[in-house]
């Protein structure tokens, strides 16, 4: 499946079906992150429910140092 993640086109394995799978794929499941899919924030409860589609635009963001 082709996804655009954090502005980059990439191909992920077909076993990646939802956000939970995606975070596991990148080993981010334990990190404090927030996910946006096609401009909409995905709540944690939806991680295993929302199915990813080819061409989805995903943003995975976190907190960094700032003033």
């Amino acid at each position, binding site marked *: 499946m082709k996804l655009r993640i954090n502005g980059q086109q990439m191909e992920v394995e077909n076993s990646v079906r939802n956000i939970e799978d995606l975070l596991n794929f990148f080993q981010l499941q334990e*990190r404090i992150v927030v996910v946006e899919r096609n401009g909409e924030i995905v709540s944690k409860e939806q991680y295993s429910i929302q199915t990813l589609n080819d061409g989805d635009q995903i943003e995975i963001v976190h907190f960094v140092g*700032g*003033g």
Partner: protein
Amino acid sequence: MLKIGDKTFQSRLMLGTGKYPSFEIQKEAVEASGAEILTFAVRRMNIYEPSQPNFLEMLDLSKYTLLPNTAGAKTAEEAVRIAKLAKASGLCDMIKVEVIGDDKTLLPDPIETLKASEMLLEEGFIVLPYTSDDVVLAKKLEELGVHAIMPGASPIGSGQGIVNPLNLSFIIEQANIPVIVDAGIGSPADCALAMEMGADGILLNTAVSGAKDPVKMAKAMKLAIEAGRLGYEAGRIPKKRYAQASSPTEGMLTT
């Protein structure tokens, strides 16, 4: 005690978390500062480095209130998007609205800041806008219902201190919400001056993270803010043009 929205704080210092020499020094500096509110930025994760260390994840989050900023936003819509992402973490409901209008000076865009503040208030955020030191803008933001107003002392990271104390005093005098002096602080003296003028708190980052000894500077800022606040509460004497003797003028041996 500082009250912002429904939250109260003992410390009047809000500390930024950017640009420290190391996480170890940063952790010590945060502790030395006594700050209860820490600011953060929201950025894309480097998904290829899942084990990269993250300062926020090292903190005992029961001890701190997170104040994410919308840095990077140039429009109200971008600021709202960042704010919503921050809130979706479930870790915070406060937001520092930061909409930059000029890349060289990093001064805030007043119109977009006002728009973003209005939109975020409607979304139920506790809204703390970073603004220029304009009393009219401060009044309009207060009328909207923001929970604190954060005028800059001078451009972000410049360390120039309070370049327009007159403007800042206008804001402090008219505000019925907390005034947090944000950006441009360079030294403990700047903090003390702002607090003596009646500011309710200080938000700073580079002045500590960029100091030769950030931990020592964090403590210096803490003490300066406390001293300035006490001085404000105590009420300073008026300035006089000529001297007034401290010792009695009666009973002098030379008369």
